[in-house]
């Protein structure tokens, strides 16, 4: 009886991959993700490099070269302005690329902000339940019941839109969905035995919330948040279109398209070309986001 039955020795110490790594790998294995990644990398590289390399100023007017059509379209196109020029002779490609910079900046920071706020509120509501939950969720419902865009244009319409205020407004208007998802995930995690196990071991609530549950449930949510980067970029462009985004002369997708709308009949490319550009970026982000979401569902469904 004194001998101890040692269970099977690990063959080669299996360094099992963490769930988030597995999600990345699975997503990366899909064609959609790769296509999206390649397109996005190319466009982001162009947005970072082309405006300075080409030396073209996105806000410099050049009346002589005004209303030039894109390559191979109509008469008077030129290699120096691949997407044509607008009514003031500004290069559309550079303007769109600079717009992309702002769009990405606002999209990413807004998503991070709403993810953080939503996750925290959902974590508290889901973990503590009871009164905390009721109060936080009523607040969330109230917030959710005002269309985000109405809230955003109300605030930005009556105050002056700047980049930080746009990020703040969109981020604060977008957290409720995250709070809801987080709350229900935390609620179901909290019922699981490993949480009970930690409680019996004597762990404090804070320790369980931030050291045990949060690291587990945040990454899967963050993966899906990629989809919201695209959504927020659309919102940013909507605001710009309504004249409530980053103010001219800084070019953004929204204000370029709003400008181009006035010249729709004689220079259709001003409104449409930046849009195609934007759609390309958004589709690449959405493809990546969707494959991440699927990978997550597959891995969580299977394990």
């Amino acid at each position, binding site marked *: 009886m004194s001998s101890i039955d040692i269970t099977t020795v*690990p063959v080669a110490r299996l360094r*099992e991959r*963490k*769930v988030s790594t597995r999600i990345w790998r699975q997503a990366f294995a899909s064609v959609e993700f790769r296509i999206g990644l390649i397109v996005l990398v190319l466009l982001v590289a162009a947005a970072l490099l082309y405006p300075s390399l080409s030396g073209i100023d996105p806000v410099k007017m050049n009346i002589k070269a005004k209303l030039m059509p894109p390559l191979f379209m109509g008469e008077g196109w030129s290699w120096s302005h691949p997407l044509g020029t607008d009514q003031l002779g500004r290069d559309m490609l550079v303007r769109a690329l600079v717009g992309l910079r702002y769009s990405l900046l606002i999209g990413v920071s807004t998503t991070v902000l709403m993810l953080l706020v939503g996750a925290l509120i959902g974590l508290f509501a889901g973990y503590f339940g009871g009164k905390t939950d009721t109060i936080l969720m009523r607040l969330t419902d109230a917030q959710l019941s005002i269309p985000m865009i109405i809230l955003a244009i109300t605030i930005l319409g009556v105050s002056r839109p700047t980049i930080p205020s746009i990020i703040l407004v969109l981020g604060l208007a977008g957290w409720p969905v995250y709070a809801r998802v987080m709350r229900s995930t935390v609620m179901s995690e909290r019922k699981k035995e490993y949480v009970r*196990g*930690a409680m*019996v071991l*004597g762990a404090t609530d804070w320790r369980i919330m931030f050291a045990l549950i949060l690291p587990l449930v945040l990454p899967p949510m963050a993966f899906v948040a990629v989809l919201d980067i695209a959504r927020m970029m659309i919102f940013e462009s909507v605001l710009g279109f309504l004249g409530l985004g980053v103010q001219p002369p800084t070019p953004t997708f929204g204000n370029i398209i709003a400008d181009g709308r006035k010249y729709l009949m004689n220079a259709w490319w001003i409104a449409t070309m930046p849009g195609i550009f934007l759609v390309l970026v958004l589709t690449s982000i959405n493809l990546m986001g969707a494959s991440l979401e699927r990978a997550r569902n597959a891995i969580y469904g299977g394990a």
Partner: protein
Amino acid sequence: MLDGAETRTLLSVRNLSVMAGDRTILDGISFDLQPRRILSVIGESGSGKTVLARTLASWLSPPLRVSGGTVLFQGRDLLADPTHARSLSGREIAYVGGNPAGALDPTMTVGAQLVEKLRAVRPDIPAAKARDKAIQLLKAVRIPAAERRFNEYPFQYSGGMMQRAMIVDALISDPALLIADNITQPLDVTVAAQILKLMRDLNAEFSTAILFICSSLPVACDASDEVMVLHKGRVVERQTPAALIASPQHGYTYALIAELPTLWQGGPDRRRRVPATERPIMSVRGVSKAYETRGKSGKALVQAVRNADFDVFAGDNFGIVGESGCGKSSLMRLLTGLERPDGGRILFKGEDVGTASRKRLRELRREFQLVLQDPYGSLPPQSAIGAILEEPLKIHRIGTRAERRDRARAVMSEVGLHPGLYESLPTGLSAGQRQRLNVARAMILEPDLLIMDETLSALDQTEQGKLLDLFERLQARHGFTYIFISHDLTMVRQVCSRIAVMYLGEAVEVAPNDRLFFDPGHPYTRGLLSAAPTLEPRRYRPEDCLLEGEPPSPIDLPPGCAFASRCPHAFDRCRAENPALLSRGGQALAACFLNEPHEATHV
């Protein structure tokens, strides 16, 4: 369809082989089944018995595929003619599975689905007739108030009730063959025993042949005319139950029978002991707990634990047994301080756990620990084994980093986990290894009391035995006290010196091991013992003791004894007054009026 002499044999399987990819699952299975017979197929998990059931029900999905053989049903080969096979499934060949809870659409009433199924396979039957037949069969499987139940939804049925409904679903088309795949597995013993009895009755009444697939030898022997043993995809033997038990032909069957723990006879039960001391380490005094639920008629109180009362002695193995819903999990949460009782006291070394401050409770937790039931859900999914073990030390700020690491490694080797696993995630561990890890995590704080909540239920017989050995060794070395919370009578019979039986939140009987099994003082205990699956000659015959019906809802308990509605001996007083635990001498207590000296003469 049967045309007399020619098809005397209903089902004839010859050389059936099934592969999954290039792995052989079934290897040359051959057997015959006559009409009206019950044939059990038993084997451990992985023996291929469920694959066999699914093959016969034409329900194989990739990667499984038939690689050879014939399945003659009423003389026609099902494998050669899949269209014919499909047309039989649900009509002539019916299937009942082991998961009644998920077997029907939750958004439709049970009745509507029974009618839908009958009319799908027999479109010639008018709806009104189908409905009558469904209700008639619901009555036949003894579902109370069948007309009302017909219009209820699946979620309103209990597990046992749902399994009866699924049997109705199978029998409603008058099939010639019923494949019953592990149908008693998720049910409590007393309910499982009822279902088995029902199945035998129905077999006599409806002249359906039954292929009864199960993993428990005692259940198979109870249920059938003949038992066929499946091992690693092959039929190793086939005999009548009596012959099989008396003279198993194959080594595997022999080992299977030898390994079975026993309730009354001797056997591998070296662990049974008398109580070590009579010094209580934990005393439960009149503890109760109710939960509020929002039911159909507003708020309701579920009385999960009612007036529980017992002592656990230091160095002892104490068992708490009961069926699902008896309140043992709630009691566990109270004992471990996860929840506070509504009333009563839980004294651990003289200190009340139920009213201790949060801080004090955290300190107390170093001295009593819990080992949880689910080997998969109880470990944090993304921590390495070493980190899991060091976590409790970190929580209580014990030792330096190096000391914690040494301690974790020491505990790992003590419970039989290779120290080389220190940095691995628990993902690759088997259920048994995971439970060792759970035990290691609980004992790293060097507690005095370990509460085992169904710790062994997820493990197979062999693994259970190994862990029980481990527990005994650890107890000898560290002087642990164990509380085993379990539904498994054979397990507590093997290890516990004293046992409490719970029914609807109450401890109805508390007695030393031998006394409980040889001289139970409560009718519920007798019922439980009569339903326990065992190959031994029964001390308590199901005919006398088997309980009818199911426990009443803990929401609106009638006054008096909670067991009165199912008790074969209940009399007027039982329905008016709730009996308290009374001493029957020799540390045995039972809550039943039959034990009062003069009342006993009454009955």
